[in-house]
């Protein structure tokens, strides 16, 4: 992990309509989405997006449908061109690339996983997995070897010669992930990759992604409308509403300090005990009598189980072998109650 972001979005705007460039002046002057639609018949897709995505991190972009999250991810590889703004990948402005250079970048730097899998139905699983290499003109033997390797890694060995239609949704998405991994790119774009799967399989796939990420350290951009999923996966969470970023940062921080009533509403529904970690509620180390040691990355649920509901206990928080703070069960219980909207 380095300090220079892998992908930077600077002042990104997207307006849908025939005269998008001319509409920029109104938007810059502060016109909102409903007014623009009503007065000029243009749809404001994204407004003033500034996001830094760090190498080796999972950046999750979360928002409800219509918030512009799928539009946003398609700007990174320019499947959609922005109306204004910069997209900088590895220090290179993607907007300045020629068609050939753009294709080269899509082949070598970014791969993508789709909500509806988007596999080639007339190709076998193996051919699908090796598609990226085929496009790059890699020879057949290498293609097969790489495809087999990644299919095995996502748990699909034995299915190489099946056709996608013969597999279940979860297995098809594993092929989608294998296809993205075989491309061997630094950046992986995942557009609601798990949204079409049923809950149990979705959890499996999330675990698979975390496992792969611990091993491969790709720069993952993950789009989702599911907050639980976002909190589980995110190193950096970006929340979109009506095409604008309303809060971004470390997910625990957003959970503890939502900056907007919209986000408060959002976070009020989730299982906080499972999502919040010791790190977010611990205090500096002062006391000396502890009921035991806990890891800084444990979630609160495991602690409640361990204390058997006794709120008078105190625990010492450890980061590896180093004590870094203390945790009072009373604080833990308070943290479980979401801060109610300022109005209440």
């Amino acid at each position, binding site marked *: 992990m380095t300090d220079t972001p892998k992908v930077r979005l600077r002042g990104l705007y997207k307006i849908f309509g025939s005269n998008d460039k001319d509409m920029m002046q109104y938007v810059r002057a502060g016109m909102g989405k409903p007014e623009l639609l009503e007065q000029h018949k243009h749809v404001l897709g994204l407004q003033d997006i500034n996001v830094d995505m760090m190498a080796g991190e999972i950046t999750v972009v979360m928002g409800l449908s219509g918030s512009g999250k799928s539009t946003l991810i398609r700007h990174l590889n320019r499947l959609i061109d922005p109306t204004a703004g910069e997209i900088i990948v590895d220090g290179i402005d993607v907007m300045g690339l020629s068609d050939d250079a753009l294709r080269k970048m*899509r082949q070598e730097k970014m791969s993508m996983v789709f909500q*509806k899998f988007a596999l080639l139905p007339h190709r076998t699983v193996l051919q699908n997995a090796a598609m990226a290499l085929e496009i790059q003109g890699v020879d057949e033997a290498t293609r097969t070897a790489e495809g087999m390797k990644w299919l095995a890694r996502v748990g699909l060995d034995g299915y190489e010669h099946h056709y996608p*239609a013969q597999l279940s949704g979860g297995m098809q998405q594993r092929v989608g992930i294998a296809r993205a991994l075989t491309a061997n790119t630094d950046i992986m774009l995942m557009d609601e990759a798990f949204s079409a799967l049923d809950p149990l399989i979705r959890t499996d796939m999330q675990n698979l992604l975390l496992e792969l990420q611990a091993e491969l350290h790709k720069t993952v951009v993950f789009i989702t409308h599911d907050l639980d999923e976002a909190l589980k996966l995110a190193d950096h969470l970006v929340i979109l509403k009506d095409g604008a970023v309303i809060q971004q940062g470390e997910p625990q921080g957003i959970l503890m300090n939502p900056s907007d009533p919209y986000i408060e509403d959002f976070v009020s529904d989730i299982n906080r005990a499972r999502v919040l970690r010791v790190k977010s509620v611990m205090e500096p180390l002062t006391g000396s009598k502890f009921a035991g040691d806990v890891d800084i990355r444990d979630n609160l649920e495991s602690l409640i189980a361990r204390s058997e509901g006794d709120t008078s206990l105190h625990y010492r928080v450890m980061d590896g072998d180093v004590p870094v703070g203390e945790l009072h069960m009373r604080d833990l219980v308070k943290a479980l109650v979401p801060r109610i909207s300022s109005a209440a």
Partner: protein
Amino acid sequence: MAFYDGLFRALGLESWCGTGASDAPLSMADLMAQSRGDGAASGPMFPFPSLDNLNESCGNFAQTRDLTKGLEDGFLAVKDDIKAVLDPITQPLSWLLDGALWMFAAIPWFIMIPILVAIAWWASRSVAVTVFVAFSILLLAFVDHYDVAMQTLSIIFVCTGISILLGVPIGIAMSKSDRLQKTLVPVLDLLQTLPTFVYLIPLIFLFSVTESKLYGIAIILYAIVPVIRLTDLGIRLVDKDVIEAANAFGMSSNQRLAKVELPLALPNIMAGVNQTIMMSLAMVVIASLVSAPGLGVNVLRGIRNLELGVGIVAGIGIVLLAVILDRVSKAALSRVDLTRKSH
């Protein structure tokens, strides 16, 4: 005298119109009216102001048959230029047709029939279809219609082949450009709905009826439409998500066409090919009017000489050919479909 005389008088156009009597030759209807001794007065009370009716009052109006004559003269005037361009371009078609006709005739039946049955097996992989094909050809041969059936078949092979060769690229171009699609669709509609006899007429002026390309062109013009339409449709119907994936992984547009769009459009293209085969068969019968050999000639003979039996046997022969071609191409189509849904 005529109904509209008053109108031109009122507008002060009498002198421009002249006497009102046109020099143009009289139509048959006029002639008969004159010989019966009654004039325009016996016409309807208020005739539609058509060219012919206006001409009766004002000679400066052309008659409708001047329009048709003008069309004909115009066509005859440019005919030689069109011919100078089209003749060399279409000449290979004559060679192909003549070659195919010669080849189908030259190969003896005991080699030809097994070849056709083998083709049916290769395309359909269906025992039932193959047996049916063998049975039908043997039946046709048994009633001495083998030669004419082979002539028809060879014309269909050549014309369908050329239709696919030209139609698929046109369909691809159409699917890539909305403007081209908008311009071509009316042309395709016209080709498909124009009565088939009508576009034989200009072709007869352009080419000699002894040349086989005359009927070749007529058949191709008529039969190429479905393969163009369905190629266009098939490519446009390819799943947008899959296209997006192809783009996201950096496919060039040629790679996308060859690896994604054409394979996924193949079932539709095959359906178009099936239709093209059927339409060339329909046209090859009408083309016998302009010297196309084959079963159509016998049908024509049946009509001309009122030889009922000849017509019916040839007609049933055409039905058999149609069923053979349809079943084989449909079986091939469903085979293509299977590989993508695969079980």
